[in-house]
Structure formats: C-alpha cells, structure tokens
C-alpha cells in the first residue's frame, strides 16, 4: 500500500493526459539548427527566403497562366447559363462587344439568332457584402423580364431570400420607366412597388437600388442598339 501513488498528486495534469491510456507530455525534439545564433550578413541569412520567394512566385505565375482563362470562362458561363431563364424566348446568349458604363452586356438570342432581349450585370452594396446580379430586359429595354442573383453573402435565412424565385419573380413585368422601391406593401407595377422581404429590408432595398442603377445606365444605349438600323 505504501508503494501506491496517491492519485491526487497527479491531478494537475492536462485533461488530455489525464484521459489518455499512457500519460505523456508533448514531445519536444531539440534541434541544433533552431537553437544556433544567426550567422553571416543579410544575404547569408536571407538567401533562402529570397530563393523561395522567386521560385514560388514563378510557380504561381504558371498556375495563374494555366487556370486564369478557365476561371474567367466559369464567370462568363455562369451568366450565359441564366440567359434563357431571364429573357422569354431566348435560347442562347452572346457577350456583346459593347461595354456600357463598365458593364459588359449580353445579347439574348432566340433559336434563329434574332435579338429578343438583353442581359445586363449589376453590382452594389448589400447588407453584408456586394450583391452581384443580372437583369433581363426585352429587346427595346422597356420591360424587366427576369432577375438572377449571381453572388451575395446576405444573412442566411433572411437576406439570402433575395435569391428565391418568388422574390425575384416580383420584378418580372415592371416597366423600366418607373424606379423600383421595396416597401411593406403588395407588389404594384404601376408605382414600382416591390414587396420587401420580412427581416431583410436592407437586402430588399439594395436589390431595388442595384436594378434601378443598372436599368438607368443601359436603357438608352440598349434601346438605340435594338433599333432596326443598329441590329446587324
């Protein structure tokens, strides 16, 4: 009995050690090169950092060279994939060469290659981060035909309801002449009223503001481009 250790004497060990099968303290491996003092001049000490930075930099440039075009294509495809759902009658989209106020607009074409509408990207501050969306417009840019949110980081279960089809569907059929406004009232195309989402006033407002800015920026140029003279 006298040989036995009192368990209380061993108590102040870490819980991990207490529970483990064998009590083992963290292993510290003494290493000569980590205890020696720095030697040599600046280059003698830092050459490894410089060499690594150069090699790694070249490697990353190679990765970007190989993957950059794929990533750019992914971004483009994401918008193009939405074109049929944003413009009625459209079966495909092509990136237009025109850039209106920094926006790359997309032509929505039907099966015969005839212009049936436009898809225009818009971007603006939401509640948590930038909201990126695309607006579908008819060929004369007079009516909103669709809305899709590409990127948002709004509050899950509240603000991120802006991606739901029932909220986005409210915008369809609104004329581009009346500015949109999110309110606590039923949807009304006459006054541009969008019924705001419960608990997400700022996100709802942000979407309306981005749509308004987008429409205002591209309306006149697109209407001009869609006129029979401009369409080739």
């Amino acid at each position, binding site marked *: 009995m006298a040989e036995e250790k009192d368990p209380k004497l061993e108590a102040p060990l870490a819980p991990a050690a*207490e529970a483990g099968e064998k009590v083992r303290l963290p292993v510290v*491996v003494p290493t000569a090169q980590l205890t*020696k003092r720095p030697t040599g001049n600046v280059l003698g*000490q830092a050459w*490894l950092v410089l060499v690594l930075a150069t090699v790694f930099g070249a490697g990353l440039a190679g990765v970007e060279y190989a993957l950059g075009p794929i990533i750019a294509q*992914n971004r483009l495809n994401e918008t193009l994939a939405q074109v049929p759902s944003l413009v009625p009658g459209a079966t495909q989209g092509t990136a237009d060469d025109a850039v209106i106020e920094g926006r790359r607009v997309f032509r929505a074409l039907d099966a015969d290659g005839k212009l049936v509408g436009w898809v225009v990207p818009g971007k603006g501050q939401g509640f948590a981060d930038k909201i990126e969306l695309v607006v579908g417009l008819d060929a004369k840019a007079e009516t909103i035909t669709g809305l899709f949110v590409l*990127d948002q980081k709004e509050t*899950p279960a509240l603000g991120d309801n802006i991606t739901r089809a029932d909220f986005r569907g409210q915008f369809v059929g609104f004329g581009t002449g009346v500015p949109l406004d999110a309110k606590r009232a039923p949807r009304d195309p006459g006054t541009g009223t969008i019924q705001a989402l419960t608990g997400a006033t700022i996100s709802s407002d942000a979407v309306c503001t981005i749509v308004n800015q987008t429409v205002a920026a591209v309306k006149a140029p697109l209407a001009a481009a869609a006129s029979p003279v401009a369409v080739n």
Partner: protein
Amino acid sequence: MAQSDGPTPLERFINGILPENPVYRQMLGLCPTLAVTAAMKPAMTMAAAVLFVLVCANIMVSLIRHLLQPHLRILVFTLTIAVFVTIADRVLAAYVYGMSKALGPYVPLIIVNCIIIARCEICASKQGVLPAIGDAVGQSFGNAVALASVATVREILGKGTWFDLPVMPLTSGDYGWSLMILPPGAFLTLGLLLGLNVHIQTVQARRKREAEKAASTALATSA
C-alpha cells in the same frame, strides 16, 4: 531518417485524429470551424483544402529544415503555406466554381490558419519527410472529423439535410431551425460538442482511476 528521437509517422498520424485533435484538443483553426460548417459540403471542401495545403507545406518545410534560420523560420513557413493556399484557391475556382464562391474568403484565410503553422513548427521543421506526412494527414483527418461533427449537427437541425440529402423532413424548407445555420448556431454547437468531449474525457479518467484503486485494494487485501 535524420532524427529518430521524435514520434514515428504512425504515432504522428494517430495523434492527429483524436489525442491531439487540432480543434477539440489544441483549440486551433476555430475560425473556419465556426464559419464554414453550416453544411457538410463546404465543410468537407474546406477539410480537403486544408489536407492539400498541410501535406504540401509539411513536405516542403521538412525538406528545407536544415537550411532554416531560427529567426526567419516563421517567415518561410508563411511563404510556403501562402503558395499552396493560392494554388488550392485557384484550382477550386477553376474546377468547382460554385463551391469556391460559397467558401468565399475562408480558403485564402487558410494561410493564417494556426493548425498549419503549428504543424510546420512542431513537426515538419524538426523531423523527416515521412513523419511530416503522417502528421499532416493525421491532423487533417482530425480537422475533418471536427468540421464534420459540427456541420452534421448544424445542417440536420438547420436545413433537415445532410450533404444536401433530405434526412429530417421536420426541419426542412421553411421549417428549418435557422438559428443553427446562422453564426450563433456555430458557437452553440461547437461549445456543446467541446463540453461533451471534455465530459467524456473526465468520465473516462475517473473510471480508470476507480478501476486502478479497486485493483490495488484487492491486491493489498489478498497480500
């Protein structure tokens, strides 16, 4: 191997999974554990990115460990980690674009994830390539287990799904417990799981002590 006095690759591997689990025992990498565990898919993508970065960084650091200057070692670790994180980030954006968007800034933030710097410092800068790989894989598995445990609870209670498969119709759709997929759910879940973990440890330790005591008393009385 240059040094044989450290833990073997197998020990390093096993230690990473539970005895030295990065999240539950070392309390490292809690930021991604809280942020990307609203569902299983992003959590497991994150775990895979950590596995890639940790294995590559550990191998690299282990290979150059004899060239390290003591006062510049953290700089070299960070440089190495940053390169592999950038590669992982670009590869995700090129081949799993949707997931890359869902993870947002948390993939680039692996650079400052303490799990990886800690493994470079504790293992890779002091041991050969094999223990470093064992360590990296073990710690990554431990990290994946921790992320999966939190994400499972949050996704099932918050959305009624697991890996997007419906498992609990009661909490699906509009009836989800949305608190669980919001940030408070992350803190609650991690806190409760950590508590459970410590409780199990304590009970095990007590049982072991009692069993030892009983054995020694039996020995004393028989003698």
